[in-house]
């Protein structure tokens, strides 16, 4: 039980990660998958940031006050980069969703597969 109390941040991360993971693999709508991917990414950020926290520490901005412990700045830098890269890939993902909708008329996975298979059959017959 003390292990649970000392590591509750990891269990929160696992819960959010699995919610995002389930959304990506179980739902067919592409916009919903993107939102699930965002939840997944944010849970990974939470993992790194919670590992960088030091008890009784403060934000890693040096002050003149006698401060013993600052939070570890390295995970913050990595996650800052990761957030910006995440929004870049999300933007490209949304652009591709719009492009798929304009070409095929649907953004649901199963309908898309049916349309593509129907076109392949037409192509094979023709």
């Amino acid at each position: 039980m003390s292990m649970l109390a000392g590591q509750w941040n990891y269990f929160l991360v696992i819960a959010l990660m699995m919610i995002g993971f389930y959304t990506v693999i179980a739902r067919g709508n592409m916009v919903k998958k993107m939102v699930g991917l965002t939840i997944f990414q944010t849970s990974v950020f939470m993992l790194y940031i919670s590992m960088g926290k030091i008890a009784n520490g403060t934000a890693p901005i040096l002050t003149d006050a006698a401060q013993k412990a600052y939070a570890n700045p390295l995970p913050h830098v990595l996650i800052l980069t990761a957030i910006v890269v995440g929004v870049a890939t999300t933007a490209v993902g949304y652009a591709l969703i719009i492009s798929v909708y304009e070409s095929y008329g649907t953004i649901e996975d199963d309908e898309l597969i049916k349309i593509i298979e129907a076109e392949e059959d037409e192509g094979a017959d023709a």
Partner: protein
Amino acid sequence: MSGFLVDAALISLLTLIAILAVRLHRLFAVVMLSGAFSLVAAALFVVLDAVDVAFTEAAVGAGISTILALATLSLVPRDEKPHSIALVPAFLAFATAAMLAVAVSDLPAFGDANAPIHNHVAPEYLTGSAEDIGIPNVVTSVLASYRGFDTLGETVVVFTAAIAVLLVLGGYTRPRRRNGDRDKEDGNAR
């Protein structure tokens, strides 16, 4: 005690928003919930002493990401097809969660000051930022000076994303099968 209450409130709100975002069918509500998720995550980052990260997550996640998703929703259908709970993905999610919970037992406890990551390069960066660089914000000094190459790569990634979106949506249209026309057309979007 009040700190614990704030933490518990933020964490339960975060989980509730995530679960609702999975369950709802109206995509407009799902997108707004993802913006709310980013904002509550930013608040949680502040509680975890990561102020720069909270700033970025609030600006980028709750701002730009929500705007782009709403712009997408203006062009695609706004309702999801009703689904029942899919059993195999749910089982996969639970199995992965169980494996991760077992793996997590080896990680250092939350807030432990003697964890290995705090004794490697981090003290060097904290002292170097005061003496060699002279900047109070250690995250900026690490981002721009100590790890400047990574930031250069990140800037190029953002640049590449802009180029990719402009190529996909910038103005040249492939044949649109919805209307049955197969001629190639050029359009001026800008």
